[in-house]
């Protein structure tokens, strides 16, 4: 899909994309020689942030790859060596042994790269999508991963074999977010078609469409460690943050924000979510009342990603130079 069918050179470029890196490197060097002003580029936006399983590091993804910061100092310690850029999601496997990194070239390829977290060696490089992968989710077996992409596909594969195990067809536009219920029985996806789709994993069938949003949905997060009916939160261009009980197809409540919410993260223990927005404000919202408890003004706008520290005390977002943390409190 979205490939120029008439050009052999494009086919070469796609199949040999990694081979382009040296030539692009040459260009960069030429730019240093001839166009010093042209490399005064802005910092690319951070698109995903996650804590390492041991809680000592923070990973930040962007068009430049994956940078590693220490915690809580947030000083950049290094960078993951990857064979592709435009990273949109990074997720550790439940057993903390593997790290999946997802992204790809817009309009061309969606890639999921699984690394052995100890050795940093690539275990698998999955290229099943025709557009950037925006979100991934591990299953509890540490083998299977669900990925969603702007190519409208929702794919489940065994990462060891790099083969697609299941496909979930239904979204009419690109898919931007995915999450799995704790028991892996149900998959929830959301995307540009303004809908949340609920899928039964055992049959690959879509069992529900939740369509209260009136604009593209950007993020979707399952409330962790919860008793009773599972709850997910979603954010959309319609400026709303909505709470759902997907297994019964109910939108529980919603709140409309002053600017577009872009990403959300739950507090690990409390029924509270933090949402970053296009205006750079972090809103702290009570999931049980949909009340905005607090707003934190940051020094950036268009915050596409955030992470909450394992102890639930801090929120980490993009700062003027790398990452910056803010206290996750309601006061």
């Amino acid at each position: 899909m979205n490939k120029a069918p008439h050009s052999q050179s494009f086919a070469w470029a796609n199949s040999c994309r990694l081979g382009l890196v040296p030539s692009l490197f040459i260009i960069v060097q030429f730019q240093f020689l001839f166009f010093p002003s042209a490399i005064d580029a802005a910092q690319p936006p951070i698109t995903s942030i996650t804590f390492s399983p041991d809680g000592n590091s923070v990973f930040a993804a962007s068009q430049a790859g994956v940078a590693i910061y220490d915690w809580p100092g947030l000083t950049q310690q290094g960078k993951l060596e990857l064979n592709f850029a435009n990273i949109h999601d990074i997720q550790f496997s439940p057993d903390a042994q593997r790290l999946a990194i997802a992204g790809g070239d817009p309009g061309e390829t969606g890639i999921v790269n699984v690394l052995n977290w100890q050795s940093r060696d690539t275990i698998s490089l999955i290229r099943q999508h025709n557009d950037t992968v925006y979100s991934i989710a591990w299953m509890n077996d540490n083998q299977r991963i669900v990925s969603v992409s702007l190519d409208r596909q929702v794919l489940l594969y065994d990462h060891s074999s790099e083969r697609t195990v299941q496909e979930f067809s239904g979204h009419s536009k690109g898919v931007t977010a995915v999450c799995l219920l704790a028991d892996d029985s149900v998959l929830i996806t959301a995307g540009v078609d303004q809908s949340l789709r609920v899928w039964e994993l055992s049959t690959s069938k879509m069992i529900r469409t939740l369509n209260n949003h009136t604009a593209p949905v950007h993020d979707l997060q399952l409330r962790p460690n919860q008793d009773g009916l599972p709850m997910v939160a979603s954010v959309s261009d319609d400026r709303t943050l909505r709470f759902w009980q997907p297994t019964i197809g109910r939108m529980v409540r919603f709140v409309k924000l002053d600017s577009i919410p872009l990403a959300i993260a739950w507090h690990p223990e409390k029924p509270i979510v933090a949402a970053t927005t296009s205006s750079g404000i972090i809103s702290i919202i009570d999931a049980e009342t949909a009340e905005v408890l607090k707003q934190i003004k940051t020094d950036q706008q268009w915050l596409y990603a955030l992470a909450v520290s394992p102890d639930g005390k801090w929120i980490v977002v993009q700062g003027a130079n790398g990452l910056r943390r803010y206290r996750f409190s309601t006061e």
Partner: protein
Amino acid sequence: MLRLTIFLILLSVFAPSSYAGEAAAVDFDTDIVPVLTKSGCNSGACHGAAAGRGEFHLSLYGSNPAFDYDSIVHRFKGRRVNLVDPENSLLLLKPTESLIHGGGARIELDDPAFNLLTAWIAKGAQRLQQRKLKSFEISPSHQVFESVGDKVTLQATAIFSNEDERTVTRWTVLTPEDDTAVQIDSETGEATVLRSGRHVVIARYLDRVVPIVFIVPLQARSIDFVDGPRTNFIDDHVYDLLATLKIPASPGADDATFLRRITLNLTGRLPAPRVALAFLDDKRTNKRQLLIDELLNSEEFNDYWTYEFAKLLRIRSQPLDKIGARTYHRWLREQIASATPYDEIAEDLLTSIGDSHTNGPANFYRTVGGPRALAEFVSELFLGSRLRCANCHDHPLDHWKQDDYHGLAAIFADVKAGRVVSIQSGGEVIHPRTGIAAVKRIPGERFLNDDAQGRESLAEWITTQHNPYFAKAIVNRLWKNMMGRGLIEPTDDLRSTNPATHPQLLEALAEDFIKHDYNLRHTLRTIANSAAYSRSEKSLPENATDDRFYSHSIVRPLEPEVLADAIADVTGVAMQFGEEPAGTRAITLFDPKISSPELDILGRCLREESCESQSTGTAGLPVLLHLLNGKLLNERIQSPESRLSRKIKENVSSEKIIREFYLLALSRLPTEGEQQFWAKEFGSIQEKQRVDLLQDFVWAMLTSQEFVTNH
């Protein structure tokens, strides 16, 4: 990708200076938006469509740079610009078709547009907002060519708020209204005229749209109109353009043609035979002026122009309520009869409230439903401008913004239009761009304070003599009614990019109208007295193709109600309109919903929408078929009560009948050739066939082009 990579390597080695120059400081609003417009990215057919395309949405023609910037730089986590590897940005890969692109290749790899976009991304894809466009000019904006094939190079100049003056021809979109008439090199701005006539090219740069007029004479031989008949300033302007175009004017119309034309134009009816005979026999040199004055002062004038304005105001009954429309219609006729200045009529309409059953103009707010529809109605009626385009986006061909549309609608948000039209505070119109209540606004002028009397302020602005639209809009409509074509067409689409055929004439007519206290009769009289109005409809070989420069009179179909009345007058069989009294004329009906199969057949306008843009009317094929074959004519001609039947019963000779019907239907006597023709026809039949032939004769009269048109 390989192609792109090689190009970039070559670019870096061989063309560093140009690239570095572009990289100096690229401003999104004033550098990148023109690139998107020039490349067609933000056109209505591509990403500028209401819903965007391919999940990429830009404002139409870059009218909202902030929205476009977010769309390009921020949407979907900034997927369209790659700040680390600028050349790999989707924003470049798609339009160069390095990746498949539904819109095809819009930018070449060696294109300045490509360099500019690359430099902008390399510099961080910032918005900057360094400057705003202060003025934009095209030179030349008006060019008269010698002949087909001539060329001119257009130059576009932009002056910005920081006093930066730039030649922006490369980034200006130059679009001929008719691309078979003008060809333009989009890079150099060189224009070549391919056909004779008057052609318009629209230049677009950022939010400015400017018309360029090209004139190519129709022939090489110059024409001197110094000795041509002229009675007022109208003739000066019309002759000026005819001389430029080298189009000869047809001679003046004969008295019979003039009589029929002016009587139809001013009273909507055919001249009575006795009036026609008297006029034809009148030897006074000023008989036409006297006739015009007489018609302007007649009751028939009041009836007909009430009908014309009732169409404009869309007067019609409301569901289960005819009283309001009747009151409204009666009020309107009083204004016409008493020669109320048009600005006063407008002010009354805009500010009246109260019981619509007793206060005629209060019905104005019952014409359309809701504040947005009122904004559209008011702008089209009083400004002759289609503000409706600015509902969803800034007007692509005019200066109207969304703020103007929704701000004007907000003025009407407090109007509650039931039987009693009242003002109830608290109404609001949600602005789709902001999602909050729009602020009341005089379109194109200023926002109103919350406590301002919106309708009064609006009425004052509309009717002030400095309003650039109000007078022009109405004189253009009067001109169309008299001359068959507006100086601007359509008459509800006045804008700089739809220039008048005779801009100075339109200005002069508007100034004259204002100077004479917005007197409708004065302008109608001025037009009627011009030599241009009284020209023959018969074209010369050299002006046969002219349909807008008034070298000959324009033939146009009679309006449905006028034709219905004319058919009734000629046949002598009146039409019945619903429960209206017998003998009621169609043009005096207050409500287009009054039952009348005849008017339905003839294509009357129901006034639910504007009647100006209606494509139906009496010129269509269904009407023609009904006239030729239907009951509309045949039953009336054959009726025992018909004028023809009565004449036959009275044993009037065929010759006299023929003469009378010629006068009735065509306002003239039969020519010698026609007399001979009918004499031969009637001489070759038996007496028992006479009735049939007479009926055929009347049918032929009523189906002739000469009868069903004003010419």
